[in-house]
């Protein structure tokens, strides 16, 4: 009986070897798998695009503050935030403050306004694969400004009946929305500091006109026309929680390269 018991145990153990040994061999195949160039290229492609979220930048326009030196009858100051998605798409939010207090020398008309304005939109980096220090981008914006203005002038004189009509309207309410097509260039100055300019073509979308006047200057838009141009010169700072995703991807590619060398 004892001998038969030993024989049964031996058979059971040997059957286990039959099942487990091939499994171990398969596991070894997996662990010994060496990544090839294709894997690195795939990883490299992923790196080119990078992770979805690649940081947030804040920027401020300095051109609006010195625009009077270039012939503008108004000043404006604005700042914004842009989110870097795959170094390709940059959703932006911009907010600014524009003001004008101008009297025309020829006809003595005086116009005064000051108000905030808002923009939302998106930039598109044309060279998103290159991760260059400078890049060109295009973008779209939807902008909106609620504002009030004062306008006054010398009396209107009736050319036939000769009567005089005073002209002064204060706190006239206006709302205006417009779209912007943006072309911009941004260059890296230091690891977190960039500078760049944008050229903006602005197209009036909707406006509420007063019974007695058109607005003359609209904060954020400029002179009240169907379309107009704008320029900004931006100083851009990458906010501190930038780079995390990108550096992870870089480390992954480096470790893959080391494995290939081995």
């Amino acid at each position, binding site marked *: 009986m004892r001998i038969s018991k030993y024989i049964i145990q031996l058979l059971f153990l040997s059957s286990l070897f039959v099942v487990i040994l091939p499994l171990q061999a398969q596991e070894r195949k997996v662990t010994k798998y060496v990544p090839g160039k294709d894997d690195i290229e795939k990883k490299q492609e992923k790196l080119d695009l990078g992770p979805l979220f690649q940081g947030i930048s804040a920027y401020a326009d300095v051109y609006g503050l010195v625009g009077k030196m270039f012939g503008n009858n108004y000043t404006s100051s604005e700042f914004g935030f842009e989110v870097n998605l795959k170094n390709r798409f940059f959703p932006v939010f911009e907010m600014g403050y524009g003001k004008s207090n101008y009297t025309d020398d020829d006809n003595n008309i005086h116009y005064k306004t000051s108000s905030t304005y808002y923009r939302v939109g998106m930039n598109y980096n044309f060279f998103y694969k290159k991760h260059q220090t400078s890049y060109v981008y295009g973008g779209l914006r939807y902008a909106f400004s609620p504002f009030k203005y004062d306008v006054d*002038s010398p009396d209107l004189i009736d050319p036939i*009946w000769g009567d005089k009509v005073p002209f002064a309207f204060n706190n006239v309410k206006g709302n205006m929305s417009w779209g912007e097509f943006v072309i911009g260039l941004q260059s890296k100055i230091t690891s977190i500091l960039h500078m760049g300019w944008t050229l903006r073509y602005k197209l009036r979308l909707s406006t509420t006109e007063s019974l007695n006047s058109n607005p003359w200057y609209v904060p954020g838009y400029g002179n009240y026309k169907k*379309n107009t141009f704008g320029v900004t010169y931006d100083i851009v700072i990458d906010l501190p929680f930038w780079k995390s995703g990108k550096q992870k991807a870089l480390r992954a590619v480096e470790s893959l390269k080391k494995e290939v060398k081995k």
Partner: protein
Amino acid sequence: MRIYHFRMGQGRSLIEMLLVIILLGFLYASCSNGNDCVIDNVSYARFNFYDKTNTSIKLNATITVTAAGTDSVLVNQEADAKGLELPVSYTGHIDTFIVKYTDLMRDTIFMMHTNIPYFISMDCGMAMYHLVEDVKCTHYAIDSIKLVNPQINFDPNENFKIYYSTLISK
């Protein structure tokens, strides 16, 4: 590598083309954004003459138009007139225009309106627009008068239709 260079070159040229197209669009848009101002900044009430069948006519008379309350002659002995462009008072509520066809025949037009002082722009200045509330007239030569567009501004739209009898229409 060749394919890579080819793609890069193609991509770059596409972007350059895109930038040129956008810049040309900008230039076109800026050129078509003219600043058109009216020379004298006066808005006129526009009357056109019709016969009873609503056909545009020329008057078979030389007309002179004056306004009550002023010595100014608004239209001076105009022949073959198809219509009138008359200034509107800046402060009055009822303007009275006297249309003289002959020494013995004249009509009077009464136009009730409100006045709207308007700031156009820094370049074009101020103007007075008007909103017509009602119009009436005498009926010596005029058969009837109809208000077509109550807004008197710089738009060259017809404001009134004056229907004449065949007596003085060509």
